C-alpha cells in the first residue's frame, strides 16, 4: 500500500505541479489518487496514460471543489449541495463564480436545476423507473417528486412505501 506523502510527491511529479497544490486538495481526491497509484500497474504507455488521466482527473475535481468551498463560505449555498453536483455543473458554477462572484442569481439557477437532476438519479434507483423517463417529466413534476424524495427518504431504511408513493406521483 502507498502512503499519502508518497502519493502527493508522485502526483506532483506526474502532473508537473507543486506538492503544495496537491496537499491542498480535499481528502477524498487525495485518497482517490492513492487508490489509482495502488491499482494501476504501469507496464505500458497505455497504463501510463490511464494513471495520468486518473491523477489529472482527481486534481481537476479537487481544484474545482476548492473554488466551490470558497463560494459556499461566501454565500448561503451549502458546500454539501455543491459537492453533490455532477462534475460538469461544478465546473460551470466554479467558472461563473470566478468570472463574476456577484452574479448569484445565475449561480443559484444552475445549481438548483442540477440538484433536481441528481435527486432524480436516486429516485430512479429507488423506484426502478429509468432516469430518462424521469428526466422527460415536466419541471414542476420533477421538483415535486424530488422534494418528496428529499423529505421522506430514510437512510438505512428499505423505503418501500416511499418508492410506491413516488411511482404514483410519476404516473399520476
Amino acid at each position, binding site marked *: *500500500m502507498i502512503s499519502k506523502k508518497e502519493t502527493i510527491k508522485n502526483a506532483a511529479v506526474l502532473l508537473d505541479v507543486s506538492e503544495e497544490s496537491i496537499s491542498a486538495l480535499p481528502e*477524498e481526491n487525495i*485518497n*482517490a*489518487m*492513492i*487508490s*489509482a497509484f*495502488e*491499482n*494501476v*500497474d504501469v507496464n505500458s504507455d*497505455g*497504463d501510463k496514460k*490511464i494513471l495520468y488521466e*486518473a491523477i489529472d482527473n*482527481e486534481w481537476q475535481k479537487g481544484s474545482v471543489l476548492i473554488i466551490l468551498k470558497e463560494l459556499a463560505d461566501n454565500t448561503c449555498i451549502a458546500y454539501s449541495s455543491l459537492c453533490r453536483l455532477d462534475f460538469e455543473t461544478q465546473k460551470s458554477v466554479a467558472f461563473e463564480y470566478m468570472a463574476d462572484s456577484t452574479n448569484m442569481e445565475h449561480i443559484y439557477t444552475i445549481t438548483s436545476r442540477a440538484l433536481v437532476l441528481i435527486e432524480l*438519479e*436516486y429516485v430512479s*434507483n*429507488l423506484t*426502478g423507473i429509468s432516469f430518462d423517463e424521469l428526466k422527460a417529466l415536466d419541471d414542476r413534476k420533477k421538483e415535486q417528486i424530488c422534494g418528496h424524495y428529499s423529505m421522506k427518504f430514510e437512510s*438505512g431504511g*428499505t*423505503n*418501500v412505501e416511499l*418508492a*410506491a408513493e413516488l411511482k404514483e406521483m410519476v404516473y399520476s
Partner: protein
Amino acid sequence: MSTVKSSGRILKDINNRAYAKYETEYSELVAAALEDSSIPYFARYSLTELSLTYDSEYRIQVEEIIKKCTSGECRNLLREIKNRKNKSDYAAILPEIAEILETSVGILKSRPAELQELLCKTYTDLWFCDSETIRKRLSDLLMTEPHINEKVNKKHEFER
C-alpha cells in the same frame, strides 16, 4: 501483503473508471457484494484498507454497498446471521422481505416452507448488496421456483 480481486476483467476494461480508498476490515465482503450486484470493479486490499476502482455509472449502488459494509451495523448483522441456525430463526426476517417485495407477510407465509426458507437464506446472503439487486433476486426466486410451486400445487390438488 495485499489481495487483488476483480469482476473478471482487467482494470483498463472498466468504463468510466472512478477510484476510491477506504479504511475497512470488510474489503472481502465489499468485493463479494460488488460481484453479486454485477458491478464492474477492480479491488486491491489489505486487512485494513481497500483501494477500489469501479464503473462510475454504478456510483449510487457502490455508495450503498460501502455504507452497509463499513457501518457498525455490519458487525452486528454478521453476528446475527451466524447465530441463525434453524428455520424459525430465518422466519423472523420474513417481514423485512415482505417489505422489500412490496407484499404482505401473510402472502409469503402462504408460499411453500421450502421457498420461504430459500427467500430468507438468499436475503441474508445478499444483505450487503444494493437494494435493487436484493429486490430483483428475491423477486426472481418467487417467479422461478417451478419445482417448488409445482410440488405445492400437487399437494393442494391431493388435499382437495
